[in-house]
């Protein structure tokens, strides 16, 4: 097996270890360590890392966890991810987790924080409100208060005081992590055949459940491999996928898209790990403020962020152009208000710019891909044909 495949397989195992063995092992190695689970999309993991914590991303059970009690908590017209999360919580998957953070993204995740609180899951369950006011003095200050509130909860558990040196160190590690991930995307932009979208997905997703130091090593090893001229190009179109930032599609769906004739050159599947565009200052004597400034000024676009003044449709189109994509796939979880309510705006912007796109919906444990395969195949064929004609 090639080194690259070995790395991808290792990451796949980590990503879908619903018992979080790597995180548990890490916690056991030293007294005072804490595990903090966070829900999609973005959470400033640096602050947890700086106080002897491991932030662990929670994305539900996907198609790997049978829902037995979760359905009794949610009506049929609510998306799928929270039922997997509650199922996991009630069946002990988060046993070693100390606390949970629910970033503001939608009312489902928000109310899930209340369900955790009412069910006494973890030592704390905090809904973290992200400012929709993007000025440093107002929204930025509020965001600092929210981060401090998380920090105070951790301090109550392990007594660790935040220092600027530690936080600057953590910021540096996550800066590196984001740079390495972007390097992978940049290589895949011109040579997507070197690393499949599924392997890319596993490699990046693994970073949500292991220490950032370990993930950085994996990413460096991956980069070393894919910087070489490996693999053979195939006749596929290049696409950007958007809308899949929270409830994840099953891996087979990502594979289906690739097999139906598309190279996925950008996506928002692991948006939280790529949220801040560029580095956060890791030299200041107020690093919490530096994180806040980065959130205010360097956030990517997302359905969870109010966009008037900096429309996300324009930002998506520039991303698609930057990646030299042939089209955009709007793939949203069923019943996901944030993603789905954006679609008409996005679609119109694509129409205006003559960018080809398709829309479809999925849920995390969808088992039939025939229709999507046909839809994506037809999309890819139409673009190829159009290019030949043109």
């Amino acid at each position, binding site marked *: 097996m090639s080194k690259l495949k070995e790395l991808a397989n290792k990451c796949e195992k980590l990503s879908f270890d619903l018992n979080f063995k790597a995180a548990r092992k890490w916690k056991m190695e030293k007294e005072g360590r804490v595990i903090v689970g966070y829900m999609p999309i973005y959470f400033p993991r640096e602050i947890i890392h700086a106080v002897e914590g491991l932030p662990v991303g929670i994305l539900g059970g996907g198609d790997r966890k049978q829902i037995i009690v979760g359905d*009794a*908590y*949610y*009506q049929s*017209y*609510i998306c799928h991810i*929270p039922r997997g999360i509650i199922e996991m919580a009630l069946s002990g998957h988060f046993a070693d987790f100390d606390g949970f953070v629910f970033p*503001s*993204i*939608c*009312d*489902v995740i*928000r*109310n*899930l*924080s*209340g*369900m955790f*609180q*009412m*069910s006494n899951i973890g030592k704390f369950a*905090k*809904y*973290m*409100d992200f*400012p*929709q*006011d993007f*000025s440093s*003095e*107002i*929204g930025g*200050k*509020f965001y600092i*208060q929210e981060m401090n509130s998380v920090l105070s909860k951790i301090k109550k558990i392990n007594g660790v005081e935040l220092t600027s040196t530690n936080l600057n160190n953590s910021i540096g590690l996550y800066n590196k992590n984001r740079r390495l991930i972007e390097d992978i995307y940049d290589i895949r932009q011109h040579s997507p055949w070197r690393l499949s979208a599924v392997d890319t997905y596993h490699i990046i997703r693994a970073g949500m459940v292991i220490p950032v130091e370990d993930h950085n090593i994996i990413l460096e090893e991956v980069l070393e491999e894919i910087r070489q001229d490996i693999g053979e190009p195939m006749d596929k179109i290049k696409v950007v996928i958007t809308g899949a930032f929270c409830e994840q599609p099953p891996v087979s769906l990502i594979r289906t898209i690739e097999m139906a004739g598309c190279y996925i050159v950008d996506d928002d599947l692991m948006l939280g790990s790529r949220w801040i565009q560029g580095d956060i200052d890791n030299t200041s004597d107020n690093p919490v403020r530096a994180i806040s400034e980065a959130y205010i000024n360097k956030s990517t676009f997302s*359905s*969870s962020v*109010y*966009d*008037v003044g900096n429309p996300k449709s324009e930002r998506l189109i520039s991303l698609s152009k930057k990646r030299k994509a042939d089209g955009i796939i709007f793939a*949203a979880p*069923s*019943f*996901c*208000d*944030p993603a*789905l*309510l*954006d*679609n*008409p*705006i996005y*679609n*119109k912007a694509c129409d205006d710019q003559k960018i080809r796109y398709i829309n479809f*919906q999925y849920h995390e444990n969808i088992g039939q891909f025939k229709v999507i395969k046909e839809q994506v195949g037809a999309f890819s064929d139409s673009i190829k044909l159009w290019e030949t004609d043109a």
Partner: protein
Amino acid sequence: MSENVKKEKSMILQKEMIGGLFKDLGNAKESGKKVVYTFVPGNLSELIRSFDMLMVYPEINALQSGMRKKSDEYIKEAEKWGHSEDVCTYVKCDIGMMLNGNIGPTGEKIPDPDLLLLSYTGCFTFLKWFENLEKLYPGVPVALLHTPYQENGEITPEMTDYMVKQLKNDVIPKMEQISGQKFNPEKLKTILQHSADTEDMIVKIFDTTKNKPSPIDAYFAGVYYIGPINIGFRGTAEATGYYKELYSEIQERVKLGLGPVTPEGEMKEEKFRLVVEGPPNWTSFREFWKLFYDMGAVIVSSSYTRVGGVYKNGFRHDPNRLLESLSEYCMGCYTNMNLKQRVDMLAQEIVDYKADGFLVNSIKSCNSFSAGQLLMMRTLEDRLGIPVGFIESDLVDPRYFSYSNIKNRLESFFQMLDQRKLISV
């Protein structure tokens, strides 16, 4: 309302107030009054009023379209425009109405906005709604007021400070610019005093359900009672007058030992007292209500009537803390409370109003209400040992109102309540 139901004075007053509002909106161009589109939960009607601007509430338009049987067509129009069948139907109904010329309930076009004021409280979808509106009205200024969620079951001074700063920095300057008037704290003070008076009356009115029989239905009639405060009349002498009249009419019913007034006249026998969680269905509102009063069920308290403000806990707009109290009002609305607070409030209501049962009307559209409701229901069942019932419908999408399903479920629920009563006797 059937012929034999005599219109009370308060009903006439309310009709006049609403008629006047739409007339003002119809004349906005001529009168030069500026129009602000904003939402009911966490509405800043007092502040808007202090600038002499008029208010349009997209969710009120949507619910009225539902009652006028127009929502079906509007929703389909929005779906043709690209909206998914899965998303909140209030948004789609409103967008469909706009795409159809934005004709209001009086048959007149609702004027376009001069300001889009997104004071978003308790619901994330409001953000998305306004992003869509912003595209439909390009160039119209948007002011945003982010209301922090009561995640820890409290309003902290930092949260209030965050809101006050947003008001000072963004909302008020935009209002000054649009209206051409300077912010006038004295004027706002007077308006807030009226609000506090109105809120006192609201609490008294909804507290009359303590009587047996209850003189009012706090859900089906309750939505009419909260109409004036939710569509911009809070803070006016008219509203205080209306609520005083309503209260005295209800007091009269209490004196005479009368039950609630329904569209078919007075409810004769009160058999079951219920607390209801969740918004009602608007497309079949009358049939929905009838399912209850035909069975002698009266709603003694509902969470939905708190969506535009929670006053029972003592909150009042405070003329001496202008912007702070506007902020605390926004943060206090029902859907901005965390689930634990919601459950505690409902539990208290069940006890205070001696309810026999608790019912959830789960709305397909509304994650803000619906996500977590099943746990809330089970918690109340365990905590109070009270029978609970569950039905599903939608606000304005008639495709999700199944009369027979709801009827079957309600019949079983009422049977359960009956049996419980027999056992306790």
